[in-house]
């Protein structure tokens, strides 16, 4: 890639006011570095991934409202986690976390476990029990 071809497309980087560095060749064919504000294919890929997560969050929300899962699964999706990541934060086996997705099991969870989930999601126990924003 030539230095003048380093893409300067719009991207989500602008929100944090930074540019990333790339290696590119100058007119004499020598390598140098250049800053880029973003590149469309990357933005498309990232937007796509974000959209995917939003869909997952909405789906989980509906399932909580239909009493098909507990708010834990909803907050897991909100925090872009999956089961292995959440289980790792909780220090529990994955099957145990999965069990806590059952509304009937969730209702019977003790304060200590609830508090631990609340801490992982950085919310209060009250917030953990409801899914209102």
């Amino acid at each position, binding site marked *: *890639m030539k230095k003048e071809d380093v893409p300067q497309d719009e991207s989500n980087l602008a929100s944090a006011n930074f540019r*990333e560095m790339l290696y590119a060749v100058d007119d004499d064919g020598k*390598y140098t570095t250049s800053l880029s504000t973003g590149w469309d*294919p*990357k933005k498309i*890929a990232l937007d796509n991934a974000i959209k995917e997560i939003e869909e997952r969050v909405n789906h989980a929300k509906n399932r909580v409202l239909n009493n098909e899962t507990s708010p834990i699964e909803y907050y897991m999706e909100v925090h872009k986690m999956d089961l292995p990541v959440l289980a*790792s934060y909780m220090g529990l086996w994955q099957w145990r976390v999965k069990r806590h997705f059952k509304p009937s099991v969730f209702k019977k969870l003790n304060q200590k476990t609830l508090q631990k989930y609340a801490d992982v999601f950085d919310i209060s126990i009250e917030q953990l029990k409801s899914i209102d924003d």
Partner: protein
Amino acid sequence: MTENLKIDFAHNQSAHCENGVVSNLMKHNGFQISEPMVFGIGSGLLFSYLPFLKVNYAPVFTYRSMPGFIFNKFAKRTGIKMKREKFKNPKKAQERLDQNLAKNNPVGLQVGVYNLVYFPDEYRFHFNAHNMVVYGKQGDRYLISDPVMEAVTSLSIKELEKVRFAKGAFAPKGHMYYPISFPETLELKTAIVKGIKQTARDMTAPVPIVGVKAMRWVAKNIRKWPMKLGPKKANHYLGQIVRMQEEIGTGGGGFRYIYAAFLQEASTLLGNPKLMELSKEMTSIGDAWRDFAVDASRIYKNRNSKSSGYEDVAIQLEVLADREEHFFKTLKKAV
């Protein structure tokens, strides 16, 4: 206790975090080592496909070696001694960090990205192989040199603890590292040759999950995805390839350019004109990787369920595999 500790540390932005941390720590210790040199000597370039390991609900594709690998190999090949520590107890981890800062020693840290507050929200995923340098502490804030950022930044004690003790795959466990002793002169020439040989060997290894063989395997799977997974999931997987290729601080096409820059520098240092020619070829391969990203992103932008698009990018990937196979076989003989 109020502390006001600021080590005189020069922040240089880099394309990739681990190279950048190593390069900046080397410069701090009086050795002018560029980012590409770290990357090349540390054999950072790779391609690997781990279909059995899922991140963000898609298989893992990586264009670089394992976290920490680059620094390890770089140190070993240049004769530097490193100290690395991991911790169970966050308080202990903070104590050790403070002790080093008090001794005027900036340290490298492995951290998770999800709670890195200065990153744009959209970029904050559960990715635990990011690297930064801590070079001071003022009041309750640590001074941070994050090599992918343009300028230095800072994190509160609590914020730093959170990223040092992020959980999930490659959990950093407070991982802290820094060089403790250096040889009189760095053995760059032999180190460069060793670095090149290993990359050439790994990229052409007869193993399905690494190097050009892995690229061909991915190409084969791309063809199957639309039928096997449906357009939605197939697009998601394809997006993952591009994101792993071109995200902040990673970059597959990006890595190929860093490697080309390394070959150029190595050509001058070793007085080997063949490496200069190979650098040009690597640049051209990097361009082809970017074309691949453009075409792949077009497929999922249009939510195109026609499998002809998948066929096209699969072919592109196979061509890339052929080019890289030829490239690394030639490179191996050139040093």
